[in-house]
């Protein structure tokens, strides 16, 4: 049966840790749920236990410190626990080795993060093609090099950081392709870097490493295709125009065995959608994100969303958003309510500084609409169900005009990843075919369980729950 809690925080990345800390420090009873075994999320990603003897990186040190404060403040941590559904009344359904099957929370803080944006082009399903996030996880968590000759393609300074880490670990980085072309735009926005000294330093030092090692950096270039039979052997690249479409006659081919793609992130907003929070389409924030007020509260009272899952903005923004939501959620459950407003106002300057940085970052590094035109008719859009682009286009021609309708007919998004990979690819394909804005097409409707969950575990839920459901229906 569901356990009653005051504040439930979903996700133990910077946003979730910071929210849990603020709420617990204010005196709220906090349960922090994390799908992985250790806290930190992508930003503070901790090494696997086997490698913990090595000197941790700076982010890892910071994450560890924050984590220790969260525990000291008295928050309960449920690791390896998946939130597979969110139901009316702030009911979160859990699946994990310990803890209750469900939490019924007075306040829910969603800090679900973001995942790498898939970009489809001929050959993108070949072994050796991976997301920058996957490469980083291999390197940071498992100390594994993803390949020997690595081509990075994507956008944003995180590419420098990954490339520098890869070079440092002994890989040959063939080139770093940056989709954006900066001239003029960057200098106009440089003011937003004021106060972001750590970021500037990190970016510069990574860039310097690459310069010193002679790694070519090519702004305004992108991927056309990956080639190989069982494995990537080479990649064709091309110059991009301002919309990130390929420029004719600019193609080159580079030999490589690994392709790391970092075309930004897509916010994980499934739980807030399941609960029914209002969403808006914001390409600059990564896609669809929940609407929020100053307290990070969504359109649903008592449901908060922070960090990349509510709009991609990076770790430091997640930290301050988490803190605000933690204070507000604690106040909602009756803790330090009188001081909450003042405490939140005190955070306004930090929030404003990080939002400025977020806007600058989005202006520079939001992939142009052209990346969604790199696929061809025989390119697979839905990997789980192996649906090629041509099938989606045919279905639109038959009259299907929404993501859900295309899903029903083509099976796109019905696979094990629940559409996380193909949702944006399919939405953009439909939008292009119909000549309508992608915001009008929308994403697949989420359905619980949002991750595959063992039937045996689901059935173990108390029989009382069923009785409860029957009476609930009778009451209606």
């Amino acid at each position, binding site marked *: 049966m569901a356990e009653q809690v005051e504040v439930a925080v979903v996700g133990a990345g910077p946003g979730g840790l910071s929210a849990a800390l603020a709420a617990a420090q204010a005196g709220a009873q906090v349960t922090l749920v994390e799908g992985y075994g250790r806290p930190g999320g992508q930003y503070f990603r901790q090494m696997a236990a086997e490698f913990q003897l090595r000197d941790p990186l700076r982010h890892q040190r910071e994450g560890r410190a924050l984590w220790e404060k969260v525990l000291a403040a008295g928050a309960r941590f449920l690791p390896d626990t998946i939130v597979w559904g969110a139901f009316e009344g702030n009911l979160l*359904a859990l699946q994990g080795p310990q803890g209750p099957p469900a939490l019924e929370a007075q306040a829910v803080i969603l800090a679900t993060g973001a995942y790498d944006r898939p970009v489809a082009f001929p050959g993108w399903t070949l072994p050796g093609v991976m997301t920058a996030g996957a490469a980083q996880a291999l390197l940071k968590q498992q100390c594994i090099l993803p390949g020997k000759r690595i081509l990075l393609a994507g956008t944003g300074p995180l590419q420098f950081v990954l490339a520098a880490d890869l070079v440092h670990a002994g890989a040959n980085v063939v080139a770093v392709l940056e989709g954006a072309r900066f001239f003029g735009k960057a200098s106009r926005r440089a003011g937003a870097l004021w106060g972001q000294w750590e970021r500037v330093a990190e970016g510069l030092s990574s860039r310097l490493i690459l310069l010193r090692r002679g790694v070519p950096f090519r702004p305004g270039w992108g991927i056309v295709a990956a080639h190989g039979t069982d494995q990537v052997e080479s990649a064709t690249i091309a110059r991009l125009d301002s919309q990130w479409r390929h420029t004719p006659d600019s193609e080159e081919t580079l030999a490589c065995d690994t392709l790391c793609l970092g075309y930004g992130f897509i916010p994980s907003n499934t739980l807030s959608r399941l609960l029914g929070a209002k969403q808006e389409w914001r390409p600059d924030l990564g896609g669809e994100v929940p609407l929020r007020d100053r307290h990070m509260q969504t359109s649903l009272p008592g449901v908060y969303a922070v960090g990349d899952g509510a709009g991609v903005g990076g770790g430091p923004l997640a930290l301050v958003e988490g803190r605000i939501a933690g204070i507000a959620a604690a106040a909602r459950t009756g803790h330090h309510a009188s001081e909450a407003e003042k405490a939140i106002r005190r955070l306004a300057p930090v929030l404003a500084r990080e939002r400025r940085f977020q806007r600058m970052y989005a202006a520079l590094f939001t992939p142009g609409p052209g990346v969604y035109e790199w696929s061809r008719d025989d390119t697979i859009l839905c990997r789980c169900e192996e649906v090629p682009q041509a099938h989606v286009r045919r279905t639109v021609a038959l009259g299907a005009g929404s993501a859900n309708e295309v899903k029903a007919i083509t099976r796109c998004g019905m696979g094990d990843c*629940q559409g996380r990979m193909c949702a944006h690819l399919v939405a953009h394909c439909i939008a292009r075919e119909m000549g309508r804005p992608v915001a009008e097409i929308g994403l697949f409707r989420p359905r619980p369980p949002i991750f595959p969950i063992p*039937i045996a575990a689901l059935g173990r*839920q108390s029989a009382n729950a069923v009785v409860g459901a*029957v009476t609930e229906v009778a009451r209606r």
Partner: protein
Amino acid sequence: MSTSRKMGAEVVVVGGGIIGCAAAYYLARRGVKVVLLEKSVVGGEASGRNGGGVRAQCRERRERPLAIASIKLWVGLQAELGFDVEYVQGGNIRLATNEERMATLRRESEEELEDGLVVDLWDRDELRRLTPYLSDDFIGAKYCPSDGTANPILASRAFGWAAKREGVTLLTQTEAVNIGVHTGRVASVTARGKDGEVLIEAPWVIHAGGPWTPQLSRTLGIQAPIEPARSTIAITQRMPFLFKEFISSHDMGVYARQAREGRVHIGGVGAPPGTFDQDVPAATIAHLARGAAQMLPGLCGANFLRTWSGTLEVTPDKVPIIDHVDGIRGYVLASGFSGHGFCLGPIAGKLLSELIVDGEPSLPLHEFRLSRFEHPAGQPEASPHE
């Protein structure tokens, strides 16, 4: 902002589910000019969200001839419509965990054999031998080899696509809001879509609005005793081939079929009535998980991948209304299929077309009159929604 358009047709079909689409298709095949109005998308509601069972066994006696005739149409549907609807005659197994249930199945089988439906009763040993994948809890079953399954999403839409190909004007995202009557006969239908209002003049209306039927029929002063009910299905991840039959147990409250791509669909027998809500409650997922694991022990190690709900409609006797309505000439109700509309869709569509074109359908429909509810007899046992 509402611009008003005018159109003409011989028949307006209200509702783009499998009943409405099949009716429109068979009418168009007979050369009738049809406009079909659908408030949302074709096959988007119960027609595309059901368990995919196509069975004649375990039907109420009135429905049985229709089900038998419909299955004859199902067999040729892929060739007829030109789309693969994943129809398979894999058989239907109705299970019993107790003697009382077994006695009911035995009684039913006598009636079914009398009506020309081939069914077989299996005792515990036959059940073990023929269906080793089923739980030991079952003591016997009734089996109908000519029953089967199809893909609801594709089958309902295939009727829509084929209807369009045959010349039906399909107006989706367009909701019928009023039926105009002139001197006791249907004269027009007014509908509202995103491009404004449209008025279709026609002497015939087939009203196949499923659970949304009563609100429109009420504008004609007709009370259709139809209630909405939620039906929920959960599916597993892809699995190796386990079984080809449609299996159900009323004692455990679940049914199952394995779709072509390998996922097992688990549905609940007996949908909670009175709600249009399509959210899936956590408790329902738990119920389906327990039922699935109990009925098919092989699923214990499997994962549920997704669930969804649909809204079906039920009448007091769980049998549809397919009828001219007294007092309004040209108004034909085809609704209240009570979870049986997917199987009955093809024959219902065909009979409706005959009713209008020939004046007399090839199977009698008088048992399906709306007026039967004015003199209610005893209510039969609830039947499952498949």
